[in-house]
């Protein structure tokens, strides 16, 4: 916690690496982690001011204020919820997220999409507008929308959550987990990554599909040999979301190498809680 607060920039935001410029993603994760620890203080207020000032007119957030394009980090910022961001800023962010779909390189799908006027039934979210859907932005966007769905019923949001889940379940690798989203390339199966498997499991909390059991088994097998703090955090959060985190699992001690990984490690360590699903 001290390390996280000490790395806050004077402008209120957080960098990826101490001393660097403020970015949206580490700022949002740092705020989530600090807020989860207890009462809101001055660093949080400054952080939220930086974040709200960075929001663009279209409701989304750019990765960094110097970039004039809303992108995937909007979902991370939206995880902070209306109490932190303010009702109007939050609603605009959610509307931006709902509007985003992955573009499809397949010509037949594109023609079908053009004729029906809507997204495919199983499309996820892209990292950057105008590109394909991938596992991580899909999972993060689902987590942001699930927060809304818990407090208000919206058929549109429910439909997008179903589409996101369908996308994730369609993109599992043969070994049971998820990689970035290309489970097969030119007919060859690709291997899963622990970090993407963890975040996908988290986004699919409550889903009872057979794929989930297989993914949990794969994730459990990865935990002891995990070589990245980020991967370990997502695996813990994902497995805990399904009640599958072994209580006495001996976990290697891994150093978080970026600010957002420090924040993620704090969020993953919240005993008995899963701040992403509250």
């Amino acid at each position, binding site marked *: 916690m001290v390390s996280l607060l000490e790395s806050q920039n004077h402008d209120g935001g957080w960098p990826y690496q101490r001393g660097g410029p403020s970015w949206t993603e580490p700022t949002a994760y740092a705020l989530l982690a600090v807020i989860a620890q207890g009462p809101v203080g001055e660093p949080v207020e400054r952080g939220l001011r930086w974040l709200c000032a960075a929001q663009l007119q279209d409701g989304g957030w750019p990765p960094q204020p110097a970039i004039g394009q809303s992108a995937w980090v909007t979902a991370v910022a939206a995880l902070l919820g209306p109490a932190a961001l303010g009702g109007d800023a939050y609603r605009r962010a959610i509307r931006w997220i709902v509007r985003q779909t992955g573009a499809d390189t397949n010509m037949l799908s594109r023609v079908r999409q053009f004729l029906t006027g809507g997204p495919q039934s199983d499309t996820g979210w892209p*990292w950057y507008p105008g590109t394909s859907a991938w596992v991580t932005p899909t999972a993060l966007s689902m987590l942001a929308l699930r927060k809304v769905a818990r407090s208000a019923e919206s058929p549109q949001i429910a439909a997008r959550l179903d589409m996101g889940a369908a996308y994730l379940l369609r993109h599992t690798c043969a070994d049971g987990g998820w990689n*970035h989203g290309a489970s097969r390339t030119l007919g060859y199966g690709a291997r899963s990554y622990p970090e993407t498997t963890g975040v996908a499991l988290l986004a699919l909390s409550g889903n009872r599909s057979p794929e989930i059991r297989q993914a949990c088994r794969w994730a459990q097998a990865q935990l002891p040999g995990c070589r*990245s703090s980020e991967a370990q955090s997502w695996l813990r959060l994902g497995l805990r979301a399904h009640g599958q985190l072994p209580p006495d699992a001996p976990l290697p001690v891994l150093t978080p*190498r970026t600010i957002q990984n420090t924040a993620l490690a704090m969020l993953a360590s919240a005993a008995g809680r899963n701040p992403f699903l509250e």
Partner: protein
Amino acid sequence: MAGLNRREFLAGSAVTLAGCSRRRAGPPALVSIVRRPDYTQELYGDLRRVLAEHRLHVRGKRVLLKPNLVEFEPDSPINTHPVLVHAALEAFRELGAEVTIGEGPGHRRNTLDMAEAAGYFETIPRFEEIFTDLNLDRVAEIRLAHPHSRLRSVYLAQAALSCDLLVSMPKMKTHHWVGATLSMKNLFGIVPGGVYGWPKNILHWAGIPECVADLYRALPRHFAIVDGIVGMEGNGPIQGTAKRAGVVVAGRDLAAVDASCCQIMSIDPAKIEYLKLAVGDVEELVGSIHQIGESVQSVRTRFELMPEWQEIAERRA
């Protein structure tokens, strides 16, 4: 290794004076080919000699070494070997350069963790202090003049833009989308994942070979050192198998270096799309290359290609 003759000296000097590493009509492009069967201490001397051959004036200059880090698999020939990177670091430092290392992997975002797993922390003293994760670095938007791709501008890592010399240090690998991945394709690592994500899918949508050619043109102050000691064949750049080619290939002109690597891999460089886009007449480029050290013929080996890429195999009479 053969010493420099007058022709090589004049060619190298002309390129130096022009201050431009891109191939141009006139002097031959110098490409060093060093036979080195393993990652041994001899590499340190090899790289000192290579830099001397190319007469790089880097005293007081900022040099960024850009290896290729892809996956957490230290036993797989997937990442540029840390001993080669350390040898380059030492060689440039001896010339008086201020050397840093930077990389922005395309699929995995835990770059420093991958570097540790690949042996960089163990091999390179104080690695973390001189390393920049190019995915998370400061960025600047670059307008692309007459782009081949659909991109009109692109954000790039500041560390790559502000250095005086960008040294692309790829692994010699086959690639399931572009045939071969070498020093030019390695430039994808300066496109920030923090902006575009993992993978950097915007480059796929804009055209992979086209983006390779655009980045090559956008970054004129470069040098290449290719790790071909143990490369990767088959389903590269991730799932292929080890191929011991036993060479290090280096030069100022990334296109000339990559064309030479293709020949060493028994791939026809004229069939590599990004080379065609970048230089136009690849055969003319190949004809203009002057090899220092080993000849292509003496180190040529056959890299297995996926069935989809059989047509790029070099047809030899």
